[in-house]
Structures are given as C-alpha cells and as structure tokens.
C-alpha cells in the first residue's frame, strides 16, 4: 500500500500467515487425534491480532480469549513452544498444564489465553492499573468477543477503567457468534461500540478483516491510552470462519454461508490483492515469506512431536509459588 513502510507490510503478512499456517496445522493434527482437549481456531480473524499488536511492544500487555493462538503469535510468542503446549508436552509454554486454551508468555506481555468468556477484561484492566501506578508507559489490551460483551466483566471493567482513566484498550472481536448463538439473538445493540458511550469512552467500529484499518484504529486507541487519555473500546467486525471449536457440527449455519463470506472477507487474500495491485510488495516477496513461515511451522510441529510429555510428578509443582 502506498505510504506504508515495507517492513511493516512484511510484518503484517508474516504475522497473518504464521497464524493461518499454525492453525491449519493444529486443525489437521487435532482431527488426526494427536491433539487432546478443545481447540478454538482463529482462522479468518488474523487481521485483528496482527493490526492491534503491531502497535505494541513486548512491555505492553495483552489478555486473551479461549481463541488465543493468533493473539499469542502476534504478540511475539514462540510458535514451537506454543505448539508443544497444544500437544501437551513438557516443553510447552505452560509445561503441558494449560493446553490450547491457556497459552501464556509473560516474557512478551502475553498475560494468557482464558477459558472463561470475558475473563480477559478485568485482568487487562488490572495490568493497566499496575502500569499506571508504577508510572510505566505500558498499555494493556483486552481481547474479547461479542459474546463476552454481554457479561458483567465487560461492564464492570469498562466502568472501572473509565473512572480511573486506565491505559487499557477493550478490543472486541465481533465474529458474529457467541459459541453457537448468533449475534443478533444475543446482543441488545446493533454495534457493541455503542456501549462505549455508556462508560464515557470513545467507541470505534473497524473492518476487522482489513489489517490496515485495524492497525490505524488500534494506533489511535493505544496513543490515547499511552498519553494518559484513558480507555477506548474498539469493535472489529469480522466473521468466525471455523466452528466454535474443532469438531463443532455447526448446526446453526450453512456451509454455503461460511464459504461465501470467507471468499469475500479472507484478510490474507485481501491483503495480497491490495499490496500486489499497487506493487507495494512483489509476488516473490510474498511467496518467500510464506516459505519461510512454512518452515517455521514445520519446525514447531517437529519440536512438539519430539518433546516428552510431562512427568506425573509435575502434577504437584506450580500449585503454589
């Protein structure tokens, strides 16, 4: 895109493709019975984590959802340790104690994926409170879904953050489905961004499939937070391409609906079209990034599979600090 730094464009693409390839690999091996537990995929929503986290440094915090692989990757987590965690191996981020729903990397400010819908909201609010009290210039981003916007955690956190002017960004990924329940039958407002007004903060709607738009919207919110202006709500409109979890029979929608929407909204193909039509990034460059990412994911998969499972004695470590 004209006017965009080439390095940033490459970063956008690398991050989105890493998330996509990582997730496709996880899906394949979950379906093959090699990955236990629940897996919730982020495919089709890559532009959001990518656009938001490109505005953050490793000192900033994010708190994530049960659909957290994309957020972790975008925040800079190591894909090999992530893959090992998902496979339940000792070398994983949480030594095999968390799995897909609980990946965390505190060293890059990733405060954890959360198995409870809305769990991220007060945690990020508290991390922002700590940053403010310690006079650090850090900001915190709470990723949450449209379903979580109906939970008390959203309303209480938004109010508290606004009253205390905390450097937090409430980043709603509106993917139209709360588990199996469609947005229109579960949420009282047309746009979740409208709820910001009730808490005295800006509420912005952005096309969540457009990494450039997400980047710009998040940038404004991050600058506001970092400058002491307090919290913001950003609603990124997207669509959940995969089921709630891998194996979801998806009785609530048709395959045709999904395919039709994905053909129009896929943030990666859209990015490719945008950059190549303007010649901002060459086809060769895009292909070389893809190859490089594929190699990384292959390595991550091999690392996970070769890693040992935790020893049963590990059951009793980390219960207390």
């Amino acid at each position, binding site marked *: 895109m004209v006017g965009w730094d080439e390095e940033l464009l490459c970063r956008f693409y690398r991050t989105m493709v890493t998330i996509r390839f990582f997730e496709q690999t996880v899906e394949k091996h979950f379906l093959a019975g090699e990955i236990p537990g629940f897996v919730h995929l982020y495919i089709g929503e890559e532009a959001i984590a990518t656009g938001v986290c490109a505005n953050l440094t490793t000192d900033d915090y994010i708190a994530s959802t049960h659909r957290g692989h994309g957020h972790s990757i975008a925040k800079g987590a190591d894909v090999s340790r992530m893959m090992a965690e998902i496979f339940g191996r000792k070398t994983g981020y949480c030594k095999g104690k968390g799995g897909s729903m609980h990946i965390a990397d505190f060293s890059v400010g990733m405060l954890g994926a959360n198995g409870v819908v809305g769990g991220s909201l007060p945690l990020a*609010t508290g991390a922002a409170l700590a940053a403010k*009290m310690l006079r650090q210039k850090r900001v915190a981003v709470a990723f949450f879904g449209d379903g979580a916007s109906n939970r008390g955690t959203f309303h209480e956190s938004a109010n508290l953050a606004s009253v205390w002017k905390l450097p937090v960004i409430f980043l709603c990924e509106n993917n139209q489905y709360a588990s199996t329940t469609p947005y229109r039958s579960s949420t009282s407002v047309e746009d979740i961004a409208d709820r910001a007004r009730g808490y005295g903060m800006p509420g912005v709607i952005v096309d969540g499939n457009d990494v450039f738009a997400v980047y710009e919207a998040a940038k404004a919110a991050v600058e506001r937070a970092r400058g002491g202006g307090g919290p913001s709500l950003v609603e990124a409109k997207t669509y959940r391409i995969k089921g709630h979890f891998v194996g979801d029979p998806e009785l609530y929608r048709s395959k045709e609906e999904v395919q039709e929407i994905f053909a129009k909204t896929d943030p990666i193909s859209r990015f490719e079209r945008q950059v190549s039509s303007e010649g901002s990034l060459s086809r060769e460059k895009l292909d070389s990034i893809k190859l490089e990412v594929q190699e990384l994911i292959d390595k991550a998969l091999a690392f996970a599979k070769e890693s040992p499972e935790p020893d049963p004695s590990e059951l009793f470590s980390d*219960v207390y600090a």
Partner: protein
Amino acid sequence: MREITFAQATLEAMEEEMTRDERVFVMGEDIARQGGIFGQFKGLPQKFGLDRVKDTPISETAIVGAGVGAALGGMRPVVDMHFADFMGVAMDELFNQMAKIHFMFGGQRPVPVVVRAPDGLTNQAAAQHSQSIEAWFLHIPGLKVVIPSNPADAKGLLKSAIRDDNPVIYFEHKRLFPVKGPVPDGEVLVPIGKAAVTKPGKDITIVSYSYTMRVVMDAVSILEKDGIDPEVIDLRTISPIDKDTILNSVAKTRKLAIAHEAVKQGGVGAEIAAIVAEEGLDYLDAPVLRFGAPFTPVPFARTLEAAYRVKAEDIYSGIRALF
C-alpha cells in the same frame, strides 16, 4: 504487652507492609473516605494517599479481577470484599483466575493478591451479610486461606499474607473487629499453615478458629471445673491445614471435637474429621464430635439467630457426654 483491637491490629499490619513495600496497595468499597465499615482502614489514605488506598465502584468482579491483573503487572494488591458474602459475585475471578493462573500457565508468574473478607454473625445481619463461607475455598487448590481469632494473629497473618507470593483469602470475623487483645511491639509475623496450641491439655483435642475460639474457651472453662482438661488448637490457617499439629494432639488426647460457626455440612470440621479418620483412626477412643451451625441460611430474628449460633453450652454438654 499493649492491648489493641483486632481492627487496629489489621490497620498496623497494612501500615507496616505499605511502608515496607511500595507495591502494596488496597482497594475496595467504602474503604478510603469512610475508613471501612469496621474502621479497619481508618487513617490509611492520610498516610498513603488515595492512589494507594482506592475507593472502588460496587464491582466485586472488577475489583478482584483487576487485583489479579495488577498482581500480574508487578503490584501486590490487597482487595477488600466489604462482606465475605459478596465474594459470590466474583467467584470466577477468585477460583478460575486467581487460584489457577500460577499452575495453568506453568508457574510463569506468581499471583500475590490478598482478599480481605469480613465474615460471620453479627448484629442480626441475616442471610446475605453473615455467612461463614471459608469451606468453599478449602476446596480450591492454589489458594491459601487464613482466619485469625485474636489481634496478634490478625496482625501477624495479614503481614504474612501480604508477603506471600500466592493468593491468600483472609477471613476476618466482623464480631472480632472491636475485640482487644495483646499484640507484641515490633515485627509480628505468624506463619501461614501453622496452627497454634492455644491451651495444652490431655483429655480431648478441640480444634477451632476465628470467633468460635472464644466460644470454645468459654466451654473449656466449664469443662475444667468438671475436671476435664482439653487441649485447644486454633487452626489459624485452614488451607493448607496443619495436619501434624492436629494428629499429634489427637495421638495424645485420643479424643477430638471440632467447632466452627459455619454450617456443619461440608465444613472445615468435616475435612478435619476425615483427615483423622484416614490418618489417625487408631488414636481415637471416642466418636469425633462436630459443632457447627444447622444446615439453614442465617436467619434474622433474634431468637432464630441465637438458635443458629454455636454456643459454649452445646460444646460443653457434647464433650461432657464423652466422659
């Protein structure tokens, strides 16, 4: 030794810890401008400012959740629940977040949060302002639960809780706040996980904690007149439970009674009885006695509340029947 109230003892603990460590702060409803409904925060804002003694909206979920987030961000928060009953509003944050984060993320970061929870019967406050819910938290790995019975322990346990890297639930009985007792000058630290043998004895072990310790001591003075010499253990911490002190005592006295204000069913007494049945059955010469509230919500009317309360006469007559 000087005598101060339980509330004053907790205040001293807060002052000393907030002075010692700048990362310690406290937040909750009505704590700063009002000083807490039991006076347990009076004077703190004047010393430390409203930034470190924070009045919050009525938002238990956000208070506990933000406390956890602040701990992850490098602070050491103390959060006040106003009444222990209101912890029900924040249970996800208490047991899915606070208690699990250290384990579930493979020990990456400790969660040093103290939750202060005023509990117990006082002033006919009825079903939603009087409960003793400590047993809920005994069932959750990752939490520590302390419950002092006197000013010295109140101070020492609160200081230890603030210094602990784990989440600690600190139950403080509302009826104890005005009670005076001796507190040593200087540093007072009571170790978490260690019960106290309050009164040595040889005829029966009585285990209790919190306000009920006072009820137990009343019962003991009557028992002594009858020539019965009980050993009394103040649990002080209910998770982790100090099994050794209990089992050693029962091995000596060969009888066991447990008394608490919470309902008997599924209570701390049930856990202690089970521990002794599993690990010390041979020591027992008599059935285990449990004294607790009946399985009913806390009532309002004076006569009903009195009937609900565990009384010294009940403990006396229950134990007397064993001899």
